[in-house]
């Protein structure tokens, strides 16, 4: 497990083709805390999520990730993301996807641990079937396994219960509770029922 203790954004602004998505967004989230990101459709929740995960660069402002009191370096070692727009490699099975995920992050693959993780997200009987044959809810479960595989210190969930049935929603809530005990949690959602408790929040409606 990586030991990230703090993720902070200061005065973050993002523009696409001179269109300002949001401006002057400031937040901080540390271990044991939850940051809730809210805002109407098109307010830039997913954009902010991608900035936090290091895949988009803010137009202005700074984002810092600290692990053990030092800059964390590559976010991919510390962050995990579950979102509707994250896609798995569909010609491969969930187990193969986790093998690819471990290799991409530069870690050795532990097959037994990966199988246990897939069983935990409710895919025990389907670990060797191609992901393309899965329903959207099952694909969402594979995304959870992929994001949790390296036990990220920062777990980012965008619409965490999208496509999930009641059992899946319970799984998402259990994952969120465990993450708060292990590291930091960021949740972007419009559904107030998704997050039971949070310490910090960002309302992007106020950042236009």
């Amino acid at each position, binding site marked *: *497990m990586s030991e990230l203790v703090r993720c902070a954004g200061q005065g973050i602004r993002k523009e696409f083709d001179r269109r300002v998505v949001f401006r002057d967004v400031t937040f901080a989230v540390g271990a044991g805390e939850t940051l809730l990101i809210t805002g109407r459709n098109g307010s830039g929740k997913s954009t902010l999520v*991608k900035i936090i*995960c290091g*895949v*988009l*660069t803010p137009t202005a402002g700074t984002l810092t990730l600290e692990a053990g009191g030092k800059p964390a370096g*590559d976010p*991919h*070692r510390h*962050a*995990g*993301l579950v979102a509707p*727009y*994250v*896609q*798995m*490699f*569909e*010609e*491969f099975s969930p187990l193969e996807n986790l093998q*690819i*995920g*471990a*290799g*991409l*992050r*530069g*870690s*050795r693959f*532990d097959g037994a*641990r990966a199988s246990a993780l897939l069983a935990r997200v409710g895919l025990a009987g389907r670990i060797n079937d191609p992901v393309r044959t899965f329903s959207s809810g099952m694909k969402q479960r594979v995304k959870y396994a*992929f994001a949790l*595989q*390296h*036990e990220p210190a920062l777990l980012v969930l965008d619409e965490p219960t999208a496509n999930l049935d009641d059992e899946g929603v319970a799984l998402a809530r259990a994952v969120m509770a465990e993450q708060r005990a292990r590291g930091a949690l960021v949740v972007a959602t419009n559904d107030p029922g998704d997050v039971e408790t949070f310490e910090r929040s960002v309302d992007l409606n106020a950042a236009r």
Partner: protein
Amino acid sequence: MPPAEPRAGSFLLSVRTVFLKDWRSELRTRYAVSALLMFVITTIAIILFSLGSESASADALDGMLWVVIFFAAMSGLSRTFVMEEERGTTLTLQLATPPAAVFFGKLLFNLVLVAGINAVTVLLYALFINGFVIRTMSIFVAAVALGSIALAAASTIIAAIIARANTKGTLYPVLSFPIMLPLLLSVIEATRKASEGAFFAEAGGEFQLLISYIVVVVVSSSMLFEYIWKD
């Protein structure tokens, strides 16, 4: 038990994983190989039909070999990035691994693909095209080997650029031609010298240019790739 922490060789493991993912995906879908092979076979067949019983000059045949190789590469080598974009897995790679690992993994995959296809192309061309004779095999082998590396290097970075564009199919050969012109002129000239039976040293200039081209393209691409890949 928590997963193992990344070690010193983690970058190489990431590169290997990108390569193996694409390789296993290609074995299952055979998309790029099928496109490349079909292009090579149909183009050589068209050359055969258009030549009929006549024979073209050696210079023309040397040039035509590289025309086949260039356009075959254009028909299949962009797939490695375009496929990620179409399937929405670009973000998954961005989240999980450093940009340089993606670039070198894809470069390795394109290199293996283009080397295999070029070997098949040269074999078919030598078997079926009358008048295509190589007198200095060492020059020809070096030209094909260096040409394959240069072609893979240039096409990988161009594929990364055009994967984000709306007009991928049109843009790829259009953007590739000026960038690959020095490479094409060098390999065509080296092939001409091989067919004329020149000594290996006489093609030294072409090989120096090809090696310089490979170094410049790989180094500049690895520096530029993060900017292409990230936003």
